[in-house]
């Protein structure tokens, strides 16, 4: 049992962070809202680092890393608010090498129940749509999806489409792979959320340490200090939970059918989602009037967190799942 980051893992995070700082600075990425503005070259640069194929075997061009390493990288991507279909890339690269190399972009969507519309993210950017359902994974051409873009997307840096129904598509993966994708996608999404939770407090601390009101920096007021301390603690707890969940699914019996893994993954979503949303709200509040401006960054974290928290599962579904594991074995 060892849940602390080692030097390799810290170095991995540092290299991704450096790449993001160079190729995905927030002042630029916040305007990458459509096909024209999205910088595919930056995306390929990110892919070339191996970001989307970390857990694949060396034969398949991967780095043979553990899911937890991928999670650590995705925490950085979340912290840096990198745009684009990040989690979908890590999944789709299992089937489509060009997604792993960043030449193609993919989005992954769950086929909704009959009559319910599908929410597709990044549809206008991607080259491939992969649809998950009970029977497996289905490949659909973006052009074949009858969808309309959502005006004023809640997260301005994540374009979203609504489709009444999805074409059946070509079956490219079985039900077992679909289940593994859901599990891995869930964890990587929670990693993005944990990254937001950590980073947005750093942003707020930096602001509080220099913004002066009443003749002193506002970070000296206990009310502000305590808001930030609570945020820091929430983020620490969230990333411990996400890391543990990522480790758990790589353990023997950690697949989609394992109770311990299901509980760890669901629990990680519960705490990571709350930490990301609550900490972003804290950051806006600490930024005061500045936090209420579009120009400042805290609202972008909040809006991204709001969107991501409902991807692959929702905090409510996850909480229900954790509860069910508490009485596993007892008669329902």
């Amino acid at each position, binding site marked *: 049992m060892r849940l602390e980051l080692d030097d390799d893992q810290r170095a991995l995070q540092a290299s991704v962070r450096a790449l993001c700082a160079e190729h995905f600075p927030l002042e630029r990425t916040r305007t990458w809202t459509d096909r024209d503005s999205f910088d595919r070259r930056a995306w390929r640069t990110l892919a070339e680092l191996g970001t989307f194929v970390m857990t694949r075997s060396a034969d398949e061009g991967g780095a043979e890393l553990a899911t937890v390493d991928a999670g650590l990288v995705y925490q950085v991507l979340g912290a840096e608010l990198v745009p684009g279909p990040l989690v979908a890339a890590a999944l789709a690269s299992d089937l489509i090498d060009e997604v792993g190399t960043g030449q193609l972009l993919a989005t992954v969507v769950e086929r909704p129940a009959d009559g319910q519309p599908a929410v597709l993210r990044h549809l206008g950017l991607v080259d491939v749509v992969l649809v998950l359902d009970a029977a497996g994974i289905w490949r659909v051409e973006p052009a074949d999806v009858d969808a309309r873009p959502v005006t004023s997307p809640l997260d301005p840096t994540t374009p*979203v489409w609504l489709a009444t129904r999805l074409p059946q598509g070509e079956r490219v993966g079985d039900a077992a792979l679909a289940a593994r994708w859901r599990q891995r996608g869930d964890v990587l999404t929670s990693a993005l959320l944990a990254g937001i939770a950590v980073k947005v407090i750093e942003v707020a601390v930096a602001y509080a340490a220099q913004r002066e009101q009443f003749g002193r920096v506002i970070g000296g007021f206990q009310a*502000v200090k305590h808001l930030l301390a609570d945020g820091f603690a929430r983020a620490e707890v969230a990333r411990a939970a996400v890391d543990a969940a990522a480790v758990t699914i790589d353990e023997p019996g950690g697949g989609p059918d394992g109770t311990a893994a299901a509980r760890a993954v669901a629990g990680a979503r519960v705490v990571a989602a709350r930490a990301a949303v609550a900490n972003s709200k804290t950051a806006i*509040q600490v930024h005061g009037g500045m936090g209420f401006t579009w120009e400042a960054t805290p609202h972008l974290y909040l809006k991204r967190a709001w969107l991501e928290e409902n991807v692959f599962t929702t905090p409510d579904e996850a909480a229900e799942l954790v509860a069910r594991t508490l009485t596993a074995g007892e008669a329902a």
Partner: protein
Amino acid sequence: MRLRDSESDSRFRKEVRAWLAGAVSDLGPAPADVDDWAARRAYDRRWQSRLQDAGFAGIDWPRAYGGRGATPTEHLIFLEESAAAGAPDLGVFFVSQLHAGPTLIAEGTERQRAFHLPKILAGESVWCQGFSEPGAGSDLAGLRTRAVRDGDEYVITGSKIWTSFAFVADYCELLVRTDPAAPRHRGISWLIMPMDAPGIDVRPLRTIEGESEFAEMYLDEVRVPAENLVGAENDGWRVAMVTFSFERGTAFVRELLDAMSLARGLAAIARRVPRGTATAWDDPGIRRDIGTVAAELDALWALTKRNVSRAEGDGTDGGGPVPVAGGSAFKLSYAEALHHLGEVTMRVLDRYAISLDDLAGAVDLPLGRHLQGQLHAFAISIAAGTSQIQRNILAERVLGLPKER
């Protein structure tokens, strides 16, 4: 205590309701483009004219200055009926009617009153507020925009932020520093600045709600006649406190009523949002969440009525302005309730919380104003005294705990 209207209040309510029914019915829709300031101004002015023709303009202003002289309770009734009828709110006249007019009545010269009040009542002049600065938010007294006397003019240089309606304003209520050597609160003056004066640069300020009601305003040697001073030179802090005193009591009434309508709307939306094999409304936890936040808003409506009753007085306890306890308790709790409403909104909408506009077509959900309302919660917990400032006020001025050091 009673909730029922008194006989005269009841008559007033009937009169207002009858008039609103007609006046609203043929008003036409508000301009769709929120950035079309000319259209907004024209729309709001049309409504203001009707108010004036019907005798409702300046409803809480004294009769001597052209107002109706309504009691706080009548004012509340008017706001309540207006919300129920879907009548416009003050719109671009927010600052002129709630701030500038009452301040001029209390502190202006006869000449200032004679010139400005009729224009304000008629909806002929729009005012904006030039109080906050990039470096002076919660700490308003830290403002640095300088006004130097030069003959019979002040020459003003500095910058302001959160100047609502600046794009369409004719005048600005401006706080400036006239004596940099004096203690912070003692060197401030309150000026009327015509917005057509040279040297004013207004830039849009987009909020996290995506709207642009606010602006940043840069002032470069703007010249304003000294006669535009309201109150004495260097006495502007006191005048500003008078200005703020009009914000209390009824300033958030329309807001609160709109939030109560959001809660009802959320219940309706919950019945249509899929959740598992049923709808969100079929989940008792969701129903309780919605019921809880509705109860919070109902309680704030009760507190509003109490605050208004206090402001009115009944002869036995003097009446007067809303005490700080009620005002700050309301502001703080209202911010909390709006944030709570936002959280519940996210839970209800779930995977469909994706746009600041309504969804139509594939899924038809009027969620736009709900998600915007959620972001608006930050305006309440930050603007006009952050929740942290409200807590300080309650702790120090009501509970008597030591002042911040």
